[in-house]
């Protein structure tokens, strides 16, 4: 039970001694050149294996496995549904013109509830806080990534994606697609599962296809029965076109970033999270309008380091009373947290993060050739067919 509660805050905290925690923290907080336990550079991701279209019965699916053995699969199912607007019934009694407008706007721009996401994590009930929180966090960035007023976009593909995913789900005023995204974590959540689930979902959505529409306009939808002509939910980059990938709307990804001291570290493993000053989930997406990356959200996640047992400096240790206090054991001010710390003695982090660190994180993610682009390109490269 306690194990679960811990996990629900961020992840299972590894059982490290305060001394180990302190050592790890010190290594990671080395100015500008953190030393990670597995020797990665701060922006380097762990190797992962990814494949898509693994479930033939779904509209799109993907699997990603991290090297630490955590694996997730995601299946996307699409269903046709009649657009039932509450305004319909209300408006029928009131002004007709009014209703037209209402209908128009809601039916054209789509609705967030058309995307349904469920996450299953072993050891958790589906109404536990972690799955609910994770699914809502991912769904929100999915349906929220709307570019308003992209009607001017001249490229056909861009027009197709006007209004983002929500807009793409609109078939006509009376019909729409409903997406069911089922996320399944296959292994115990060793580290915080969000990045894994987000990347897998992203990949699954990239491979998602919808049957080709044969009917036109406001007719009841009628589809081509050939799956081979089905169209991608997110249009793929075709080799013939010279368009840059940046011109395509892409599903968002959420990256997990931690800060340790002044350092920003991507794709932290379990141990690294355990000593992080702050854990942030950064959602970003490719925006068709701007042609660059767009930051969707930053959420702080309760760092598990808060729950660790503090170590006792020699000066306060009853057992060490009487022993001469070494000179190094003098409390210094941690430049990041502004707290007094004795080097080499572990103290739970109390949260708080400096603006400059956040700014640094965002910049590392969004800048051209930055981590965000890296990740998106990497995922784009996964063979879909």
């Amino acid at each position: 039970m306690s194990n679960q509660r811990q996990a629900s805050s961020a992840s299972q905290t590894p059982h490290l001694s305060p001394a180990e925690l302190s050592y790890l923290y010190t290594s990671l907080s080395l100015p500008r050149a953190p030393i990670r336990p597995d020797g990665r550079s701060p922006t380097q991701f762990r190797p992962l294996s990814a494949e898509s279209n693994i479930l033939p019965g779904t509209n799109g699916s993907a699997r990603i496995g991290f090297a630490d053995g955590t694996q997730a699969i995601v299946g996307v199912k699409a269903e046709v549904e009649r657009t039932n607007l509450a305004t319909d019934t209300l408006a029928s009694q009131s002004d007709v013109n009014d209703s037209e407008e209402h209908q128009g706007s809601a039916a054209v721009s789509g609705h967030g509830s058309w995307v349904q996401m469920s996450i299953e994590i072993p050891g958790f009930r589906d109404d536990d806080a972690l799955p609910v929180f994770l699914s809502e966090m991912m769904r929100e960035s999915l349906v929220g990534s709307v570019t308003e007023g992209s009607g001017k976009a001249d490229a056909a593909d861009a027009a197709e994606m006007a209004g983002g995913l929500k807009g793409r789900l609109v078939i006509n005023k009376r019909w729409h697609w409903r997406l069911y995204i089922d996320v399944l974590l296959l292994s115990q959540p060793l580290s915080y599962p969000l990045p894994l689930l987000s990347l897998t979902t992203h990949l699954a959505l990239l491979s998602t296809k919808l049957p080709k529409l044969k009917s036109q306009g406001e007719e009841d939808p009628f589809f081509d029965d050939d799956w081979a002509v089905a169209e991608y939910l997110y249009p793929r980059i075709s080799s013939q076109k010279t368009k840059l990938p940046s011109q395509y709307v892409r599903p968002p990804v959420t990256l997990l970033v931690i800060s340790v001291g002044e350092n920003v570290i991507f794709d932290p493993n379990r141990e690294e999270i355990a000593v992080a000053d702050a854990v942030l989930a950064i959602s970003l997406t490719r925006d068709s309008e701007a042609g660059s990356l767009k930051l969707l959200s930053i959420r702080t996640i309760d760092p598990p380091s808060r729950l660790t047992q503090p170590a006792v400096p020699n000066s306060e240790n009853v057992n060490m009373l009487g022993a001469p206090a070494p000179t190094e054991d003098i409390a210094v001010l941690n430049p990041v947290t502004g707290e007094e710390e004795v080097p080499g003695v572990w103290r739970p982090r109390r949260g708080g993060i400096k603006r400059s660190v956040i700014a640094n994180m965002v910049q590392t993610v969004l800048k051209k050739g930055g981590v965000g682009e890296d990740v998106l390109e990497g995922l784009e490269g996964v063979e879909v067919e």
Partner: protein
Amino acid sequence: MKSLRRDLPSNPQASNVASKVFVRSTKSGKVQKIVRELYLRQDIPCSSKLCSICPSIAPADANGNIAPFILSDRPAGTKAFPHGHYLVPDTNALLNGMDLFEHTGAFYDVIILQTVLEELRNLSLPLYNRLLALIKTDEKRFYLFFNEFRLETHVRRGPQESINDRNDRAVRAVATWYEEHLRASAKKGKKEKSIPALVVITDDKDNIKKAKAENVTALSLSDYVSGLEDSERLLDMISEAREARESRGTAGQLFYPEYLSMSKIMTGLRAGTLHQGVFNVSPYNYLEGSVKVPSFNKPLLILGRDNSNRAISGDVVVIEVLPQDQWKSPSSKIVDEEAVTRNDNPDSEETENVVSENERKALQEEVKKAHGKNSEGKPQPTAKVVGIIKRGWRQYVGHVDSNSTGSQAASGRRQQTVFVLAMDRKVPKIRLRTRQAGDLLGKRILVTIDSWDRDSRYPTGHFIRSLGELETKAAETEALLLEYDVQYKPFPKSVLDCLPSEGHDWKVPASKEDKGWKGRRDLRDLLICSIDPPGCQDIDDALHARPLSNGNFEVGVHIADVSHFVKPNNPMDFEASVRGTTVYLVDKRIDMLPSLLGTDLCSLKPYVERYAFSVIWEVTPNAEIVSSDFTKSVIRSREAFSYERAQKRIDDPSQTDELTESMRNLLRFSKILRQKRYDAGALNLASPEVRIEADSDEVGDPLTDVKTKAMLETNSLVEEFMLLANITVGSKIFESFSQTALLRRHATPPPQNFEDLINQLSKKRGMELDVSSSGALASSLDRCVDSQNPFFNTLVRILATRCMTSAEYFCAGAHAEPEFRHYGLASPIYTHFTSPIRRYADLIVHRQLASAIGYEGEDGHAVIEGVSTRSKLEDICQNINYRHRNAQFAGRASIEYYVGQALKARGEQMAEGGTDSGIDEEGYVMRVFENGVVVFVPRFGIEGTVRLEDFVLPGESNAWTVSERKELAAHRTTDFDIEEYKLRVEEKGHSEKERGVTVELFQKVKVNVSSVKEEGRGAGKRRVRILITG
């Protein structure tokens, strides 16, 4: 890390697993991606008798036998393929030339691919069924090759490859594989030379080109046929559809509006702006159709060719209601197609309009009528056809219109286009291209419709076969059976194999220990007799009655135990379920069951023991039913009476034996039952029926054979008890099988069906018809009596019957219980139990009843037989309803034909001694049109249209010939009073009272009936001409 994905190259099992992915849209609007796995195998045999490999690998059944190989080791050769050949047709070849493949002169050793069969099923269900039948017969050597499951011939769809291209590739792949396979496996001793060629038949030019590149022999259907003997006749049988389209190209003018797209139709239907229904053409006016849709009480009118937009009677169409300013009244005119479009030229497309000038005139007249005042003339909602859901096209019997053959008809074998007039008046002319126009003239022929394009005024079809000379008995009978889709071929061997091996020597086992006696009651000592029409061989039912010691009576109805002989799900059962009913023609009976059963083993013949299924009641002397009991039994009928003989015996006071007494009791009970039924509101309906006794001698007046059905008391005796048995059994099986009981219902007709009749009666006779319930209708019909005109009441009953819906079989789960009502019989529940020899429904009911009473059958485990699933029963219901209706139509048509022939024979006899003056009879006016009337002649049970020229005005001779009379039409004027249902016919310019004839509805008229040679559509039928003589 191991991949979860089953990639083809990485998976060692992948070589024989493939998957098929497609999108399925369900009716409820769901769209699903469907993935089917295919497990490819290598043991599907090639089925060629040449092959030495396949026999050893082909899968064997439980007994170790493999399916016999079909394809001959010495297939027929042609000039091009001297060593013989196997044919591999693609879907289009079958679509265009199914009749060729059925032809017995050629097309043997054909490999039908599973791909092709499935594609055909999607394109045309009737053709699919015909192909299946072909595959089943042994003599044509058609082999169904499951190419999609054989590893070597499975073809994966390439990227961006259309499904057609993929299927074509599959056909070529099979041809290639067969060729290699045969070469490798041909039995030793056969030289390579003698290996048959594989010939792909395809009409796709692209496919032929690709085949050439892949070294596969491919020919178009017509090229292949040209290389055969008798090619001219065969070429005619290729469907015209495709060729015609190509040759005409874009030059053609588009006559008809395009159909809406499927998605538009579905949207409209769901939204309720479009409606779906079956298109029906009026028998009096070929330009007027109607569609009954569920949303409205009355059918919607479809007027004119433009609006009917290439729909043919029987098609399931989608219609759109026209704006109100285009609403019209139904026509009050008789319009025949051949009269209006007589001069159309089948070859010329350039000058034709959809609505020819004459047709347009005819239509204008209708518009005038729209401004009438009473209900007959009130404009009614009209609609137009905007889409076709399902074509109801079938094979049509007809003959070549001699006017359309052109002058050089008989000369040469030039291909020309002719019109075929179908026997069914509701079907438009069919354009037919043939090289044998000369031979076909004067023949009954079978044709089929291939297509009806927007740029063609008439549908295009092709010739199938000739039935023989017009007006010969054989040709006309076959035509009739084909037209009503009656299965008349002899029973196949598989069916006959199901008969008891003893044949006619079969007997009820003597020993009661025998398993045949298990669960059967011994009723041999009861005085049972049967009463049937004279000469009846298939005796379904027998009766008995005897007093009981408590003063009550025991009454029993014993029905032939057909279900004992016809076990479920064997070929005989299947054949019977397809035939559905026995069809009675004047001189022929087409049995549902082989005659060994029908006329001997099942038939409750007198003096022999027979198995029966008995319903036994205990009734009080007042015919109150105390209890009822059902049992399988063994009976011995004492006597088989005809109605007349039974009547005589009952009436003869000197007969006092027990059997006669029991019949008298039965008669007494039947009268009480009958009265009770009428009190409950049962209807006494009438249909124009005559009986023909064909076995009378040749010399006399042929017309003496034609008799109206006499109704004796004994007729109703049998009828009452059969009704009682049916009702009793109906409630019993419904009790046991609340979902699957097979019942029969007669829906309450909607009151608006009677509107016209009510109007006519009140206007012409001041009579009222109360249609609020069947009882009210029955009593108001009783009041419709004209003392001057004894037949009037029957006439009204006939007309009332036509306003009703027809009774139908259904399965109990399909309707709510209150809907089970049988309107005509005023019974809350009803079924058919009493004629299992001639109706399949009764056979099912027998099985259900047997199961309901726990009868275990001979082997003790037949308890649930006959209780099929509901969906299967619903299919059966649909079929037997259809067969039942067709059997009635066929029977009537047969009588009509016979009457015509009898009149003709009489006419010829008369002609020898002088002139053919026809026969004078009484007739009654049933309907009045603007340019004619419909007259019913009770003596012959026929009704006929009387046109203007057929009115014999005072002072005219009635001995004129048809053509002479035809001329008259132009000189006649009419005065039609739509509100009074009155038509006055006069000669132009002579409006004096005494020179004209006035007829009105229900009027009794003197008519002269004769058989005349008809030109045009009715040719060969010898139209019965009715002249009104006063």
